[in-house]
């Protein structure tokens, strides 16, 4: 049996905001297999983003067990967590989050910087990925010289450049018009399917969610 990309049991996450404790997650269990495409939907404040931050190793659960790419996150130090993000997880954000004043190829190569990959190899791999997302002609363009759809394709290339086992996409089409959004999604789906990468996509767009293999509905910090 294959190692699941994500395995979570009874995840909770509480914040203290002033005098009140906010329970963002109240016991979430889920499992995502390699190559699976899962959409997480729910209204604002339902805990979608918190769940994604936990799955991505950007945040730690208050309680519960979380295993990503075979590693139990509760046993990892901050540096080991950074290493896990570097090697096993790719992020795609709603606002792209590309570095300004930095070329497309260097933006895509950025995760490899933290793996200590030499600059020449980084650029080669980044250029190859940009070719795969149809931006071979945009290598040296800066984010402000690219359209929204192009910027998100650069971000997808960046998420895949480290050959992760899990890609987390937070409203990846939220800042794009419908046609561009559909094209970006198709690209994300095809690239991930080809590489056998599990995708967890957070959205509140039902049409986007409908494309996934499986939809996880969240409300008030729980899966419903």
């Amino acid at each position, binding site marked *: 049996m294959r190692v699941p990309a994500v395995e979570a049991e009874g995840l909770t996450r509480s914040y203290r905001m002033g005098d009140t404790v906010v329970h963002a997650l109240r016991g979430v269990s889920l499992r995502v297999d390699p190559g699976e495409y899962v959409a997480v939907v729910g209204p604002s404040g339902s805990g979608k983003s918190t769940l994604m931050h936990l799955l991505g190793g950007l*945040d730690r659960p208050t309680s519960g067990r979380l295993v990503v790419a075979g590693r139990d996150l509760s046993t990892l130090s901050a540096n080991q967590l950074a*290493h896990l993000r570097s090697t096993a997880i790719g992020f795609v954000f709603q606002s792209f*989050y590309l570095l300004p004043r930095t070329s497309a190829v260097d933006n895509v190569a950025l995760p490899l*910087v933290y793996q200590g990959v030499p600059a020449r190899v980084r650029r080669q791999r980044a250029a190859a990925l940009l070719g795969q997302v149809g931006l071979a002609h945009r290598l040296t363009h800066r984010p402000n010289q690219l359209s929204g759809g192009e910027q998100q394709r650069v971000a997808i290339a960046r998420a895949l450049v480290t050959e992760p086992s899990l890609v987390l996409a937070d409203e990846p089409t939220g800042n794009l018009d419908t046609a561009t959004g559909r094209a970006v999604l198709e690209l994300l789906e095809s690239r991930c399917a080809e590489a056998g990468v599990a995708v967890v996509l957070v959205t509140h767009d039902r049409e986007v969610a409908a494309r996934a293999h499986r939809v996880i509905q969240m409300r008030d910090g729980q899966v419903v």
Partner: protein
Amino acid sequence: MRLAEAWRVAADALRANRLRSGLTVLGVLIGVAAVVVLVGIGTGARYEVERQVEGLGSNLLLVFPGETTVAAAPTLSRLSMADVEAVVRVVGDRDRVAVQVGSGEIVRAGTASRFTSVLGVLDTTTQVFVRDLSRGSYLTRSDVDTARRVAVLGSRVADALFGDREPVGAQVTIAGVRFRVVGVFAPIGQGLGVDRDDQVHIPVTTAQRLFGTDRIDAMAVRAPDRDTIRDLGDRIVAELSRRHPDTAFSAVTQDEIIGVLGGILSVLTWVLAAIAGISLLVGGVGVANIVLVSVRERFREIGLRKAVGARPRDIAVQFLLEAVLLTGVGGVAGIGLGVAAALVVAATSPVPAVVTWWSVALAFGVSVAVGVAAGVVPAHRAGRLDPVVALRSE
């Protein structure tokens, strides 16, 4: 992350805000340049004093009444020629003993006149001190013994009174009394605050008669070698104290003069360095401030870098290097400016300025240390930043 990569990222970040980075560098630059120049002036002053003291001659003992180790000319002297003879007996060689009795007098030659320092001396002066003549000859023993009215002029005095004319053999009047010029000193320059070119030497016996005194202001003794100099000084002071039980005497060596003056100038140098150090510190505060701003501006970038695998240390190093780069560039430029300014000061003013390798190393080391100190807190904060919070910020 590799260090070379971190340097590149830091440099890129600074280049993106050229004006801001430039102004911050300027603060450090001014501080470092001030350290180099002010330490250079202090050090130069010390070297100059050493040069002047050592330029007097070798193995010299300066003997004068008074307690102080380094004294201005005493106003009241009990020393007389009898004391000089006693000292000669202690030393055992008349040629090693020089004396001085001085007075400010007007010297005239024809219509030209100059107020100058007239010194009554022994014929041994040129054997005790380093003093070369450019023309004529020095005073002789018989000049001293018979109190002849002969004079040797300092180069500046000769120039003022005679210009291009030949002074040797000419007449001058000192305090209204006629003297014959027998020699002119070669220019020698300043010595411990005295313009040694603006002097006239006459026989001590003549001078005492001219000034109406039998006192001697000071004596100088040239010891045979460095090892016995302190012992000789003690014996001279003991002999003079025996002859004048109620008066204190001092016999100081050149090394002691250099030690005392050098000590004062070292303190002065450190005070100057400390003042300059304050401006360097202010520059460092500017660096800390800019790195804090830089961290604050780039919360999102920090969050993204963390999301794609940057460790806390990678982020901290990136911002620390920004600080080190700002102060390093400021340090190098400041050293350049400081050295240039010191050279200009030395070339265009009487203030000697010497740039030493240690002041340059100190200034650069301090500036980089300031950079690390200024960068470490903001860098640490950046490294510890929660990626979720960082990514959410606008």
